[in-house]
């Protein structure tokens, strides 16, 4: 069978699976969940196959990259169906973010900037939903905006999800009074700079075209001095760094942030310098925040996948290094690589 035929077959199989899942989602099929015994058997088989790969590698046979891809695929997908729970411990930066929001009195105005797009949504959307949930639980007024074009649409999705949650289902939230989505504005960090003197100049209308002055929640908000707390969800530029440099340093905004795992290390110096009240880093940060607020969601659910995939990557790194030292044939190993 040629590679082309294999690729076409793989695409057909994936398409069929996607269609089945889509039909299932529309028809509200129940979630498949493996029992603990099945989960343990799967984990055992996974470990056994990794040991087998280690033996093969020590013998001087590097496995193909497709095998690595297969293991990562298994490590990411199968835990989604496992009913195993993990103890998630909150890190100090997540606790400090929670405490800073918890200290806000009811009615405080919170500005949330959605500076990301769908590729980063698996990490940042759970943070957005949990943060919004916390705000509405505490009766805080929420204003959302985006420095990225797709940000406000992600905000819209998060609102939809939060309002349909069990805890908030019975409560009524009025658009324009309890929350507002100001939409996207071009200009990157200059938008933050301009908001320091006038919000209205950057957002003359909201996400759906309502005039700024017609929205009771924001019509009296002139600039950052009328905002009690800011939260930035960032996947790059413009994002948290710009909010700190202009919003915090220039206009004295109280800022918390949620970042992708890749970007979070860049933000730690600001956190240590107290320019941020707290930080949620990647899926782990989202899960910790969910546990802390008592609203377990996607972050908590996906952490099992993350644990498994980290373990698989570590296992492959160890296998590669064990072989590197034990074989004593470094050049041969390199030569055997594809």
């Amino acid at each position: 069978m040629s590679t082309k035929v294999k690729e076409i077959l793989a695409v057909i199989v994936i398409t069929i699976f996607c269609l089945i899942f889509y039909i299932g989602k529309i028809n509200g099929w129940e979630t498949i969940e493996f029992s603990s015994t099945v989960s343990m058997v799967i984990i055992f088989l996974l470990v056994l196959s990794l040991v087998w790969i280690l033996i093969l590698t020590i013998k001087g046979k590097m496995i193909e990259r497709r095998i690595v891809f297969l293991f990562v695929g298994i490590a990411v997908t199968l835990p989604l169906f496992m009913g195993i729970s993990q103890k998630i411990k909150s890190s100090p930066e997540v606790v400090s973010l929670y405490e800073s929001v918890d200290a806000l009195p009811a009615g405080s105005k919170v500005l949330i900037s959605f500076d990301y797009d769908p590729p980063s949504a698996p990490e940042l959307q759970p943070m957005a939903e949990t943060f919004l949930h916390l705000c509405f639980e505490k009766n805080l007024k929420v204003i959302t905006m985006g420095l990225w074009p797709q940000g406000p649409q992600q905000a819209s999705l998060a609102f939809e999800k939060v309002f349909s949650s069990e805890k908030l289902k019975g409560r009524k939230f009025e658009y324009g009074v309890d929350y507002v989505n100001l939409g996207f504005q071009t200009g990157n960090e200059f938008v933050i700079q301009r908001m320091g003197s006038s919000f209205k100049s950057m957002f003359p209308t909201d996400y759906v075209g309502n005039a700024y002055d017609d929205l009771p929640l924001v019509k009296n908000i002139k600039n950052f001095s009328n905002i009690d707390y800011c939260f930035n969800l960032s996947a790059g530029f413009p994002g948290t760094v710009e909010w700190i440099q202009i919003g915090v340093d220039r206009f004295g905004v109280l800022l918390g942030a949620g970042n992708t795992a890749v970007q979070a290390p860049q933000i730690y110096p600001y956190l240590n310098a107290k320019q941020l009240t707290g930080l949620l880093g990647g899926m782990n940060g989202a899960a910790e925040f969910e546990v802390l607020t008592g609203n377990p969601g996607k972050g908590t659910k996906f952490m099992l996948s993350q644990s498994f995939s980290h373990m698989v990557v570590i296992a492959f790194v160890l296998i590669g290094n064990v072989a590197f030292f034990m074989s004593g044939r470094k050049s041969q190993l390199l030569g055997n690589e594809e």
Partner: protein
Amino acid sequence: MRREVPLFITAIVGASFVIQYFIPHPPFNNLSDWFSDWFSIIQACAIILGALNLMKISFLKVKDKKPDWVYAAVIIVSFLFITIIGLSEGEEFRLPGTKFDWIYNFIFIPLSATMFSILAFFVASASYRAFRARNFEATLLLIAAFFVMLGRVPIGDLLVWFMPEGYQLSNLASWVMNVPQAAGQRAIMIGIGLGIVSTSLRVILGIERSHIGGGE
């Protein structure tokens, strides 16, 4: 004049932004607001220009049947399809329940997430093949990566359940992130900051002219 006018505008705008940071009072703050508004307008125009340019390049690629022209055709069809759907639904095209919203939720989000998630597979493969303890620095990096990767997921603490509270892998990962990592980041940031200051000064003073299409 084609060079002098842009250089003059750059100098005025750059200098006013520097001054307004230290003197946030009229007329400097007003000037800064005015220039910020203009920046937003220019960037909005640049987005349109970028989209039109993408269309032009894609059309030419399809017309000349250049390599991979099929992908360019997909770009054109997708662009026109989404634009027509969006425009046909008026100002509320992004609200839940619209066709645009359906496309966003069920086509754009899964496709974007798929592209990004491919990274996980390549990272794993690259780590297996190249992440070796070849020398002291590489070993240090490997050890740090090992502890941080384990410490950032709950399973890490589970593996060292016998360790007392405060000495678990999550604490070690936090220490790595907050101390050596933050110190390294800070050093890089200071270096970048100094570089930005010197380059900005060169641009404002008209010494650096490459942005207007010329050399020194």
